[in-house]
């Protein structure tokens, strides 16, 4: 018999302490935390001015879009802040968001007079800027923004009205597509020169008059624009250097000028140049189209070779690289989305979804973690910023040190990274038609969505779909409880169902009707985006577009698709499980009684509601509930199956919810799960609040038992743990490895003492940097709505007590 070490004390594994943040990075971080987010009108004004001039009206839209971006990049303010080593600004403020009036900006402007007064996510608005937005921007775009142009006049009215308070679904693609991992590997190796050359030779092959002509010409324009953008910073750095008294800083500025003279035009020669090149492109991409989901991707893979080369050449050391990465991360924090209060309900937390992923395998399937991986993991532990959205890939042979670093960061409450299981995700991507090499090289976009880096134009956040609403319709013949207006087909009375399968059939009928409506709207928006909002810079940085000569919005990218999120799938599953147990199996109540109780919002139905609440619930490794969540996932995925978007890609399901589980939940009546009307659903694939009572392993087994292959667009699963339960890093590591070995796809772990959350709720501002993971991303606690704050606290408290 083996004599085990009985004490579970030290695991014997050790990794070096994380590097400390440099004084420079700490100061920049403080400045950014202190800066109140502002609305920056610069982008809206410059883009509007360009289109108002109409000098190139005869040109195809894609050329005009390229010229507009060029105009913006050439004319926007150039600012280099104290101590910066990486330069380039998204906006004219330190922390701000722009407006995209040609996309969703018009809708956001409804809050123009309230941005600064609202309680949740206030945004400063300069009165002068407000006036100019109202007088110059709004009148021009009001009749011209993409959503409006995508429909017939009546259709547009109906669509816009519906989307103002969306019950069934939200079409995010009206704000543009973005949501991709740019080919930054290509950019740092070839520079814009390389892309310009490729476009020119393609143009020579196809001819200027070919259908590809305008797009290929526009690529040359955006290359010029990026170079001009960098050149503006070169000049500014030189000017600052010439006036700089401090010799050290002067040399830094001269170095910046030198770097800006080379990149992004040329391929990067050093680690520093690579980061600067990526940053310029990152900014330009966020200005070209929707400032959401532009994800740098596998930075450790891109930067690893530069790091090794510089280290060998003696021009860089570990601390230096760590500082540069810190500067890069902080740059990404300078942009926030400008959302109206309506939109904030669904996309709360002020985050842009700039995902950075570390670890995983290379295209051959071998572990790919490297020295930069470790630096990035240390960075997410030390510099807990809302952006980038950090993810880490894990596979069977992920090194122990890598796992321990992750466990240590998470157990210490870093809230990042979110974890991704290669063993599950790679086969899912393969099944979507991706090559083995591309699938192994996947990166994540936005919140949780796996795509091929630099190759997928996946519109991963095309729309969010309110699944429980369709269960409500199924129980009430296509009408919401208490409403006379019929939204769905007039299906048979639910009361006549004699088995759970018949109930599910009603749900399916309502679902299909709703999805068909959504897909019609989406197709119109896809056409609208292709016609009115092509994105040449995005396209240049997506493999396939130059080869085919087509813009990404026209399906030029190598892989295409649209991801639609089924929100509230656990609520649907729990409701079906409750009906099965209470009505059909134990016959404790009739279906009529349950439907009546739901219609009344459980008024005077305490006993029935209690029974429904005590029926099996998802998250306890109980197949009696888990299988119904699986059924609901399958149903939703099947309704999307076989439909193609206008770019020639499939519609695929995802199950993550951002904050839409709150927004959608507030609109849905009582459900057979026992949930009261208007209350939130659970986030993504997480168990309902207080429903998972058998601890984290059971919850992970539940999620691993689901048909995750039906969720190619990704899922989010929140695991909130009390600090005591992960006192040993080995426990947390065991949870992660065990959960992934069991087949879970994704998990995000929050280790937070509930006491701190309560204090932060009661005293906003006391913990400005307190980061919590929401649903596929992190957000500062202070930036959450009161409801979301309470949700985070409730979940944490319940874990602490139940655990």
């Amino acid at each position, binding site marked *: 018999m083996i004599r085990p070490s009985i004490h579970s004390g030290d695991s014997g594994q050790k990794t070096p302490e994380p590097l400390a943040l440099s004084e420079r990075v700490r100061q920049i971080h403080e400045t950014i935390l202190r800066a109140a987010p502002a609305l920056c009108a610069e982008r809206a004004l410059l883009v509007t001015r360009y289109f108002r001039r109409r000098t190139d009206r005869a040109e195809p839209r894609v050329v005009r879009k390229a010229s507009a971006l060029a105009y913006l990049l050439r004319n926007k303010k150039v600012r280099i802040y104290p101590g910066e080593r990486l330069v380039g600004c998204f906006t004219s403020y330190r922390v701000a968001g722009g407006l995209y009036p040609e996309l969703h900006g018009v809708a956001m402007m409804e809050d123009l007079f309230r941005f600064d007064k609202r309680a949740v996510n206030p945004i400063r608005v300069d009165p002068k800027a407000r006036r100019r937005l109202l007088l110059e921007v709004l009148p021009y775009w009001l009749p011209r923004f993409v959503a409006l142009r995508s429909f017939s006049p009546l259709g547009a009215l109906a669509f816009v009205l519906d989307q103002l308070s969306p019950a069934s679904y939200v079409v995010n693609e009206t704000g543009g597509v973005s949501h991709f991992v740019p080919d930054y590997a290509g950019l740092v190796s070839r520079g814009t020169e390389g892309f310009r050359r490729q476009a020119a030779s393609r143009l020579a092959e196809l001819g200027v008059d070919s259908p590809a002509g305008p797009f290929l010409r526009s690529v040359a324009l955006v290359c010029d624009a990026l170079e001009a953008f960098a050149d503006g910073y070169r000049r500014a750095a030189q000017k600052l250097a010439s006036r700089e008294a401090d010799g050290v800083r002067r040399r830094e500025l001269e170095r910046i000028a030198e770097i800006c003279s080379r990149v992004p035009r040329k391929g990067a020669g050093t680690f520093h140049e690579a980061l600067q090149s990526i940053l310029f492109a990152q900014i330009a991409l966020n200005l070209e189209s929707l400032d959401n989901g532009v994800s740098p991707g596998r930075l450790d893979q891109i930067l690893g070779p530069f790091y090794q080369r510089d280290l060998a050449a003696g021009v860089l050391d570990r601390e230096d690289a760590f500082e540069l990465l810190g500067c890069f991360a902080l740059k990404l924090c300078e942009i926030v989305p400008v959302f109206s209060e309506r939109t904030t309900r669904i996309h709360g937390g002020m985050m842009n979804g700039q995902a950075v992923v570390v670890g995983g395998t290379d295209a051959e399937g071998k572990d790919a973690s490297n020295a930069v991986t470790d630096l990035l993991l240390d960075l997410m532990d030390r510099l807990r910023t809302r952006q980038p959205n950090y993810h880490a890939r894990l596979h069977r042979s992920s090194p122990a040190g890598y796992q321990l670093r992750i466990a240590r960061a998470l157990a210490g409450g870093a809230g990042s990274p979110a974890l991704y299981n290669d063993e599950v995700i790679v086969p899912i991507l393969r099944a979507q038609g991706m090559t083995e090499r591309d699938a192994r090289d996947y990166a994540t976009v936005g919140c949780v969505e796996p795509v091929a880096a630099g190759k997928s134009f996946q519109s991963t956040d095309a729309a969010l779909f309110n699944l429980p609403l369709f269960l409500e319709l199924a129980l009430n013949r296509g009408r919401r409880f208490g409403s006379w207006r019929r939204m769905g087909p007039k299906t048979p009375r639910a009361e006549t169902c004699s088995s759970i399968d018949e109930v599910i059939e009603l749900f399916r009928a309502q679902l299909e009707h709703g999805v068909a409506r959504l897909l019609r709207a989406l197709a119109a928006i896809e056409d609208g985006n292709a016609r009115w909002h092509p994105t040449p810079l995005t396209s240049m940085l997506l493999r396939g577009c130059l080869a085919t000569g087509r813009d990404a919005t026209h399906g030029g990218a190598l892989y295409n698709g649209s991801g639609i999120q089924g929100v509230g799938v656990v609520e649907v599953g729990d409701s079906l499980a409750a009906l099965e147990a209470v009505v059909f199996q134990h016959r404790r109540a009739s279906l009529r009684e349950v439907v009546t109780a739901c219609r009344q919002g459980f008024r005077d139905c305490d006993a029935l509601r209690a029974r429904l609440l005590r029926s099996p619930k998802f998250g306890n490794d109980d197949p009696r509930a888990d299988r119904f969540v699986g059924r609901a996932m399958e149903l939703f995925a099947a309704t999307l199956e076989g439909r193609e978007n206008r770019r020639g890609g499939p519609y695929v399901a995802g199950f993550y919810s951002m904050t839409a589980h709150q927004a959608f939940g507030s609109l849905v009546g009582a459900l057979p799960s026992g949930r009261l009307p208007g209350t939130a659903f659970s986030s993504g694939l997480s168990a309902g609040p207080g429903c998972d009572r058998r601890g*984290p392993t059971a919850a992970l087994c539940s999620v691993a038992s689901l048909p995750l292959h039906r969720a190619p667009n990704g899922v989010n699963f929140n695991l909130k743990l009390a600090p005591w339960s992960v006192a040993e890093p080995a426990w947390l*590591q065991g949870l992660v*490895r065990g959960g992934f070995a069991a087949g879970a796809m994704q998990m995000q772990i929050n280790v937070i003492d509930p006491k701190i959350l309560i204090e932060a709720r009661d005293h906003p501002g006391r913990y400005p940097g307190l980061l919590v993971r929401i649903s596929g991303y992190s957000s500062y606690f202070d930036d959450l709505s009161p409801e979301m704050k309470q949700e985070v606290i409730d979940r944490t408290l319940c874990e602490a007590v139940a655990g």
Partner: protein
Amino acid sequence: MDATAGEAARGLIFDVQRYSVHDGPGIRTTVFLKGCLLRCAWCQNPESLRPHPEVAFYADRCRELGQCLAVCPRDALQPDTERVVRDRCDACELCAAACPHGAFEVVGRRVAANELVEEVQRDRAFFEASGGGVTLSGGEPTLQMAFVGAFARLCRDLGLRVGLQTCGAFGWAALEPLLSDFEFVHFDLKIMDPQDHRRWTGADNRSILENARRLAAGEWPVEFRMPVIPGRTDSLSNLESVAAFLHELRVERIRLLAYHRLGEAKLPRLGYPIPPLGSAPEPNGKTQLEAAREHLRGLGLEVLT
């Protein structure tokens, strides 16, 4: 051990707790077996004591619907706060099924060894990832020796590690052949003085100490543990006797367990009018645990907490 033996050996358990991280190394599933010979005044799991299924009544959940009274076939329910007439109730579960508010819970279910193996296997991935396994606790597992043996053997054959927690009151001859199937034995020491031991636990400690001697003399990995119960186990004389005893056994280490009073809330649900053996002592703060730890350290023991 063949499968039929696994089916034949049935045990009575009252809980299966997953993600237990304080009952041995790694992530574990702790199985609580029902029935105990001791009646410790501080018992934290009074639902473990009786060796048969019973019904717990949660008065706070009761909405006075009376549905339970109507369904009870043995007339074992009364409309008072205690509700269950213990000597008539046979834990048939009808009241639990009838009550929509869950005011009744049946404590104790019979399970075949192989069924239980299936159940704990669900966390196998986590055991393997963390070096964990299953811990048999209670109650007193060794009261169901055949079941425990069958379960441990089935687990061993599947490569699952099983640890045993015991109060030490078992027949040595019955347990000894099973010992090699266990990853570890957690052995509780409480009070060394025979009279005090009998007073606060209701049982003699001679055979317990004798079992401790035999276990320590063998090659089995044993961890001695002691709950720090203020005024009961943490007196200086008891700590000194514990240390002397362990020195005699050439054991250098002891784990101290903190005490909490959560068991008390369970008493009325189970129809114990008063705690089984006198009232539970005041819960100790961390200081008492620390004091005991310091003292035992001073007596030359390595102390884990």
